């Protein structure tokens, strides 16, 4: 059996009265491309945020390569609400900050592109290489880390080259066209040397040709960097094209899972996307 890279167990995220993610359990194995789909507002990005430490879920557990990175029991008001549901769960609370999770090898992109807006494309990627630095404040400020700095710069250039943005490397990140900004976000994520890459709607705002190219690109990147990829996407062509397995959620709840073919034929999924026809 392939190594399990990511595993979610009964993850629930409730904001006030809204349950954004409801008892979600899933897993991703080494080398897979897995997609998470669902209508707008289904809680996909919230699920990403629970995995990457931006939110601490109300309850549930996230494991990365077998290690528990997040584990929570309902607290405060939520305790009464979820009475009984999580009683078999380990009571120890584990939380990780996003940077700690990135250090473990989980990198992500953002749905609403979050590049460093005053920096050039190259600098954006260079910032992300800092995880590989060993220099301290003094050696860095006094330029005693010359060799390391050179390596970081070369690494950043390699990432830019991998996403095909060498020509734009000195342009301001936010001045790039939309599709290239998305690629730059991927280059930036890759620069942290991840094992698991989370892509939040990488094809949003792209035309069909660009989307096609992106699909190929994602597969190339997986081969080249030996990655496992987990993506949220609305472009069904892309999802059906590249993903090996699919999870579908609606109103935070998992409504289907399986191979692309199975999902396409699943009546629940069709209902979720198109609504029920009224008689």
């Amino acid at each position, binding site marked *: 059996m392939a190594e399990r890279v990511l595993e979610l167990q009964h993850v629930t995220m409730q904001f006030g009265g809204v349950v954004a993610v409801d008892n979600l359990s899933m897993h991703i194995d080494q080398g897979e491309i897995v997609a998470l789909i669902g209508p707008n507002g289904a809680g996909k990005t919230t699920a990403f945020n629970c995995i990457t430490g931006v939110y601490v879920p109300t309850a549930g557990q996230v494991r990365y390569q077998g290690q528990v990175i997040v584990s929570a029991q309902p607290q405060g008001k939520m305790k009464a609400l979820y009475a009984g549901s999580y009683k078999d769960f380990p009571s120890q609370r584990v939380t990780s900050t996003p940077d700690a999770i990135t250090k473990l090898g989980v*990198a992500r992109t953002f749905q609403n592109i979050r590049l460093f807006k005053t920096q050039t494309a190259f600098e954006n990627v260079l910032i*992300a290489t800092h995880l590989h630095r060993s220099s301290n404040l003094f050696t860095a400020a006094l330029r005693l880390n010359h060799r390391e700095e050179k390596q970081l710069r070369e690494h950043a250039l390699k990432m830019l080259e991998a996403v095909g943005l060498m020509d734009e490397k000195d342009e301001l990140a936010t001045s790039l066209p939309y599709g290239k900004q998305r690629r730059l976000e991927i280059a930036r994520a890759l620069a942290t040397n991840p094992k698991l890459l989370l892509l939040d709607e990488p094809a949003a705002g792209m035309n069909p040709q660009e989307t096609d190219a992106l699909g190929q690109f994602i597969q190339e990147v997986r081969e080249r960097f030996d990655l496992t990829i987990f993506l949220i996407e609305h472009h069904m062509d892309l999802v059906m094209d590249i993903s090996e397995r699919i999870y579908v959620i609606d109103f935070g709840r998992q409504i289907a899972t399986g191979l692309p073919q199975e999902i396409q034929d699943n009546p629940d999924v069709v209902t979720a996307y198109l609504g029920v026809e009224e008689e």
Partner: protein
Amino acid sequence: MKAFKLSIAFLLALAAATLLFFSFQAKDSLPQLLERMDPHQAALQDAQMQKARDRVLDSFAEGNRERTLRNLDRYTGGFSDSLVMDSRTGFELFFYENGPSLSALGMFLLVAATALTGLVFSRQGKWRRAALPVVLIAALYAGVYILENMVGGSSMLMTVLKKGAIYALVAVSMNLLNGFTGLFSLGQAGFMLIGAYIFAIFTIPVESRPQVYQYYAGGLIQFEMPTLVAMVLAGLGAAFFAWLIGLPVLRLKSDYLAIATLGFAEIIRAVFQYDGLGPITNGSNLLRRFPTFQTALFPFAVAGVSIALIALLIHSTYGRSFKAIRDDEVAAEAMGINLYRHKQMAFVISSFFAGIGGALLAMYQTTVQAAAFTSAMTYEILLIVVIGGMGSLSGSVMASFLFVAASEWWLRFLDNETMMGSFRVPLLRSGFRMVAFSVVIMVVVLFYRQGIMGDRELSIARLTRWLGRRGKGGRDG
């Protein structure tokens, strides 16, 4: 060709060194010179001559150069018959009389030598980029030195330059935090206060302590430290307090930092004036008699080195992380940047240099009193940063000199009631300068949010491009 240039540079440097050496040596040797000019002690027999000579020596001891020169002239002129003037004495007297201009010439030659060397090496790859700035900085320092000797250390121009250099350091340190890391801190005056006090407390000479701490039996601390050691300690003290505040506050939303640091600055001001701490801080009395600087080169050197260190840091991998946090905290964290650790780092470093700035300010003012480090001081520094451009070090430096010159010098007239003939110019009276000033600042804040430089830096390439465009524009027009 290269060898030729280098040997010329060497000769220039040699001449410079000679000039500097002799003028510096002659500076203190006047009593011995007088001794040598009068080998038979004629002065002792002639009461009038003795009096004239005493006058020279008195004014020399006072350190009043102008009066010394005048008295010396009278002495050598009036009693030339009794005085022996051999060539060596004449030579040294010449150097004493013309010391400032000769040493200025020496500095100039030194810059020329450096420039020439820089030019030679600038052809050789690696040095190319470093050479020109180095030469310019050397020229700047030489310029300050020459100016100081020409216009005198206590002139308004030198006052502005000294205070401007100190404010430049403090503004740059604040910019590191507010402009480069995106943290809104308002504790600058508090950290400067800590720096100023630590510096003063540890450098007041032991023999002066009974007078300074007259209400506290000479104070608790009975030792003194070298100036530079105390200065580093001043920075470390400020940094330590910053670290303490940062522990809880930097884990939270950045708004809380503003209010916590502002509050801290207010508390620290009260605590340092607290009577119970009198044996250390002298309560609400002045601290004085600690070492001060004699030449503007000192604040320029300290501020220059500090600003250079900050600039190096900002362009290093750590500085990149700071800027990432400023641009987008969420994305920065997703790139593995530990927000708390980097914010704490920026905060501590910024406060370290604010502490050093405080020590410099103490030296500049020659006295220290906690009551002077008000939040208005922080506001002024923040507004300097805004005028210069958030995220531009060179902008902060320029704005500091501009601000100090305007407030201490150019706009002074606004505070004086002025009559034009029999017409009394309206509005002009004490306090109007600051009002006019705040209005200008509001205009900058509201309509020129980029300030002078935005987030760009002054560079030679940019300067030449700008001048070029100017020149072309002029021809076209």
